[in-house]
């Protein structure tokens, strides 16, 4: 990473911290503490299932909200407040600005997820008093959640490069919801014929595939996550995020900053 991207990323992270974004960890800690205490009291041997399900879903939702709320303002807020003027009048390329913003927010979400992961494992330790081998797959599920954040951040940044924050939020959230049904969309496409099949297939492959990145239920039941899936998901998210970010760069490179 070149130094300018690193400095912009660091500043984006610092902004999130100073804007008290990481305060969501307090709400998350409270949620996990209450869940752990309640589940511990009504134990019917599904403690692990409940804590993992609840914990990972909360990690995903908290991160999703942060990714969308901050992501949609990454470019538009800097344009509105004109803070961009003094950045882009320096030897900073526009693509470097986009890359720095992306890495800054992704870094923020990774740090946030790291602390939340500690909370999930702490709650798990509290309710079951020991870890089992299959708990390691919780780490794989957390990794997939981070991959979801990478996609959402790239999408929010893409919309932020040409749209208003409200529209960006709606578009990004809508794509997240649709993307969670990407598997069903592909199945539907397979059952149709002709033009409908072509359109449904195209739509199924264009929307980001969030459904393959959700293994929370599987992991909660102690099932393993195939290594092949980890590799494929990593490759998919890398390619998809790069394509979306390239789109953001192409649009942003042509924008007049009024």
């Amino acid at each position, binding site marked *: 990473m070149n130094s300018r991207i690193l400095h912009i990323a660091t*500043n984006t992270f610092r*902004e999130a911290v100073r*804007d008290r974004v990481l305060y969501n960890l307090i709400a998350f800690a409270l949620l996990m503490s209450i869940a752990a205490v309640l589940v511990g009291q009504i134990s019917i041997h599904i403690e692990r299932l409940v804590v993992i399900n609840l914990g990972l879903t909360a990690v995903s939702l908290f991160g999703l909200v942060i990714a969308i709320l901050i992501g949609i303002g990454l470019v538009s807020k800097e344009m509105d407040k004109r803070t961009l*003027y*003094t950045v*882009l*009048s*320096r*030897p900073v390329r526009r693509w470097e600005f986009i890359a720095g913003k992306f890495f800054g927010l992704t870094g923020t979400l990774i740090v946030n997820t790291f602390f939340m992961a500690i909370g999930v494992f702490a709650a798990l330790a509290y309710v079951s008093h020991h870890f089992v081998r299959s708990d390691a797959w919780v780490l794989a599920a957390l990794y997939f959640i981070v991959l979801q954040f990478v996609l959402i951040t790239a999408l929010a940044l893409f919309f932020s490069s040409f749209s208003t924050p409200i529209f960006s939020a709606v578009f990004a959230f809508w794509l997240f919801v649709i993307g969670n049904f990407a598997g069903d969309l592909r199945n539907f496409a397979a059952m149709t014929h002709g033009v409908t099949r072509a359109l449904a297939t195209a739509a199924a492959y264009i929307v980001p595939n969030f459904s393959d990145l959700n293994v929370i239920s599987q992991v909660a039941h102690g099932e393993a996550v195939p290594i092949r899936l980890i590799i494929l998901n990593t490759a998919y998210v890398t390619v998809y995020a790069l394509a979306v970010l390239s789109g953001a760069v192409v649009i942003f490179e042509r924008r*007049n900053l009024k």
Partner: protein
Amino acid sequence: MPAIEILGLEKIYNVGFWRKRTRRALHPLHLSVEEGEIFGFLGPNGAGKTTTLKILMGLVFPTSGTARILDLGLDDPRMKAQIGFLPEQPYFYDYLTARELLKYYGQLSGVDAKYLSRRVDDVLDQVGLANSANVQLRKFSKGMLQRAGIAQAILHDPKVVFLDEPMSGLDPMGRREVRNLIEKLKAAGKTVFFSTHILSDAEALCDRVAILHMGELRGVGAVAELTAGVHGKVEIVWHGTNVPSVVRSITAEIHSAAGITRAVLPEESQDAVLEGLRREGFHLISLTPVRTSLEDYFVAQLGSATKEEAVSIRG
């Protein structure tokens, strides 16, 4: 080699969502600024000054034309490393302290990390913010933000400094300090290109000025050259508070106080007025030429532009 060379920069905006219309913000502009000059870019609000500066900074793309700064293209990072820019009414990352902000900008400008901290302290001291270095910018007044803006523009010791309304928001002391700072930059061999609508600042500081009105260049040159072509005025003072009819018919700039009257008249009417005063028995005290100011030139230019526009609208 000129420090700044503007070759026919033009900007036309498309406005309207459904019915697309065009709005010309800048007519093809040709301008050249020499190294070491303090160049004033003058014009009323909406004249196209900020648009020109934004194009030069690579924030807005021109519809046609080009420009070179230090003989490098506008998108060349080597050029951007050698220029400083203060935007109009600057707004900065308000969660940062002044020191953090300058450090960040220094990093982006490629200032050597070994010297950065010392340089930041020096510049903060230069703009009078040394005591507020560790205060978050959200607690800064407008004047302090302007100083922080000037600090970030000169932090990396640029060869050319662009200042968009640098005196805006400053109190008289602050304005004087900025004027001194601009003079220091010139003494250090820097080129300063600044836009303003405060003509006294331009008159006091600039080697040359350009006047822009409605996106069109109305005049460019040294202040003395520009004002030489404007017809001068004279101030006539006489005893008494009565005003001869000949004076009344020529000017409305007449003030009576403490038993004497002053009138400011066009130079070419002075003989007729003196004759009138003598004929009616007034006792003349003095007749003094009034120095033509940049303001007179400015008003004359904008006045003629407005008349031309009125004619073209009627036509």
